[in-house]
């Protein structure tokens, strides 16, 4: 409410003043001096300025405010100050831009955990967002695990390298990514569905090598379109045991992948509408992400599938905090490898998430509602609704700029195509539902956003 009043007041005052004559003296820019940039190229800063020598600049020139915000938006500077000093002739001035550089190495992710199946996995994902001072983002990450206790499983290893071009005034951006991963996915061959015992699972070993090229375009201040083309080679080795022993019956295990070497190529497009007042700890606005991915049997691709994902979040200030409503829905049609399907660990906050598409755990969902969701790991359809309340704890103090305490509660459901087609069971078993929750702190620091939460801890250790 306060910010709204401020925004309305600024708008009203600005409009009233805008009707009058321009205020303050104007100067002819005789020179532009840039100071404090030990690393960032002067040319990059000058490009973002949007002001040139010879131009007339006013004391209350809105272009100056915009230039300052553009420079801050790069993320390379802690502070930017503009000032004018007298030029050589009356009416002339020298524009002085002083920048205070900041660290631009960012921690994107810390991969660390242990589970019944994998004694330890660890890794790190870093990015240098101003490589060589040229505004190029260069990042990479890795994850490595001990050998899982599932028979025939390989230790997991994944490496990724990413690069993205410098910011463009036109809003167009280019990026590329390479990935290598080797690991195992676990499929139940015996035991009850709520068992995480590694001995009840068999391992499908997969090796993936590929890359992606992407292009993004800012359609407006809050809307962005991103398109990506991707190719990878997949080598899958199926286990010797390919049937599940349910004591009473023996049924084949479905491995959603082509055995041996196969190729996957796809095109995807994402529309991102983001009106949040803050990307990390929002209290107003919302975000919608609509993604469609298609893999066609062209360009040597062995897979034919289409995948659509819709994600939406809306935030409302309530009391001293903010209420967030989050929705997710996804559907996949056709023949997609398992790592493209919806994974239970990505939906349930209480389970370990995947890293670079690698899963390290045999832990099923808790099945708190008794709907049989423990049977579901990878599915073609998934949905989740989550309610979250975040309460600001502190702002602008030391290393941690900001911190919020949050509590989240929700439910999710998963189903396979066969489940929906063959309706020989009650609906609650066809589309099983489970509950999920989280409680913790979200910390905003110079090197990244860190979440310290109950689910985070539970996801990293077996329980």
């Amino acid at each position, binding site marked *: 409410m306060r910010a709204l009043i401020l925004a309305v007041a600024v708008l009203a005052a600005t409009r009233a003043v805008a009707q009058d004559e321009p205020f303050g003296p104007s100067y002819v820019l005789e020179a532009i001096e840039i100071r404090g940039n030990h690393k960032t190229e002067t040319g990059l800063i000058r490009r973002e300025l949007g002001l040139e020598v010879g131009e007339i600049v006013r004391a209350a020139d809105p272009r100056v405010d915009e230039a300052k915000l553009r420079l801050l938006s790069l993320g390379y500077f802690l502070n930017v100050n503009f000032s004018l000093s007298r030029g050589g002739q009356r009416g002339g001035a020298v524009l002085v831009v002083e920048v205070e550089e900041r660290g631009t190495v960012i921690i994107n992710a810390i991969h660390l955990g242990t589970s019944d199946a994998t004694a330890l996995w660890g890794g790190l994902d870093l990015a240098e967002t101003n490589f060589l001072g040229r505004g190029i983002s260069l990042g990479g990450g890795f994850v490595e695990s001990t050998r899982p206790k599932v028979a025939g499983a390989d230790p997991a290893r994944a490496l990724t390298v990413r690069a993205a071009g410098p910011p463009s005034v036109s809003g167009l951006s280019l*990026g590329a990514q390479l990935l290598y991963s080797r690991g195992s996915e676990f499929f139940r061959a015996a035991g009850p569905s709520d068992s995480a015992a590694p001995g009840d699972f068999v391992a499908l070993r997969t090796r993936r090598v590929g890359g992606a090229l992407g292009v993004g375009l800012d359609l407006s201040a809050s809307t962005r379109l991103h398109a990506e083309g991707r190719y990878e080679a997949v080598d899958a080795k199926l286990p010797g045991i390919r049937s599940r022993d349910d004591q009473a019956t023996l049924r084949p295990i479905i491995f959603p992948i082509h055995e041996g070497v196969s190729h996957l190529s796809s095109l995807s497009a994402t529309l991102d509408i983001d009106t949040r007042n803050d990307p990390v700890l929002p209290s107003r*606005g919302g975000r919608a992400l609509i993604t469609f991915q298609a893999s066609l049997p062209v360009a040597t691709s062995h897979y034919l599938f289409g995948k659509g994902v819709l994600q939406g979040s809306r935030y409302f200030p309530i009391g001293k905090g903010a209420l967030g409503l989050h929705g997710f829905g996804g559907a996949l049609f056709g023949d997609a490898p398992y790592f493209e399907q919806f994974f239970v660990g990505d939906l349930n906050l209480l389970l370990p998430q995947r890293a670079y598409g690698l899963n390290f755990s045999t832990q099923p969902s808790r099945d708190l509602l008794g709907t049989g969701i423990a049977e579901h790991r990878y599915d073609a359809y998934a949905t989740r609704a989550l309610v979250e309340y975040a309460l600001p704890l502190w702002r602008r103090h030391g290393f941690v700029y900001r911190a919020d305490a949050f509590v989240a509660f929700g439910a999710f459901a998963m189903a396979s195509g066969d489940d929906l087609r063959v309706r020989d069971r009650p609906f609650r078993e066809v589309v099983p539902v489970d509950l999920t929750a989280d409680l913790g702190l979200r910390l905003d620091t110079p090197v990244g956003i860190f979440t310290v939460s109950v689910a985070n801890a539970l996801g990293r250790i077996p329980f």
Partner: protein
Amino acid sequence: MKRGAVIASALVATTVWAATPVRTTGFGQRGGALVISVGVQDLFQAPDLERLTSGFATRVLVHVALVREGNNQAVAEATRWSEIVYDLWDERFHVRRTDGAAVPEVRDAATAQEALTLATALVAFPVAPLPGLQAGAVYRVNVRADLNPLSEELVGRVRRWLARPAGRTPDGVFGSFVSFFVNPKVQDSERRVQFVSQPVVVR
């Protein structure tokens, strides 16, 4: 009963205005309006004073809300928008002040201190027409002053850029490709002063 004839400050036992400091504010009436006199000079610190001679505008937004005791809803609001600029060649300050929808008033100042006072001192500043206030009721004013404020839309846009600067892709197919960090300098304004007045009874 004719209202608004007398305005008196009173020490009234009221609900606690949690965490917001109380600043003694002068109340009066002028031209049929409730007016206040108070200063927000503490909005400026030493570096800000030095920056007044930068050649670029320094802006101050003061927002005043009249609130009836026991009710957080504002019964009247008023704003003052001030801009201070320094002429490098004439070596003088110019201050433009806009109250609500009124025509802006431009004043000159010889020193930074004088310019600052013009921008931060509210003297007999009209807050609400007296006939609209209830006799015998207790009111306070909430005052908030911002130094170089930014609109919420602009702040949100900058923060989103910081989370996903141009030149980077959104969440990639192999996992998160988003580097999150937020520049602490990008706030609603560079500095804020906020306080409430002592209670006042309208007679």
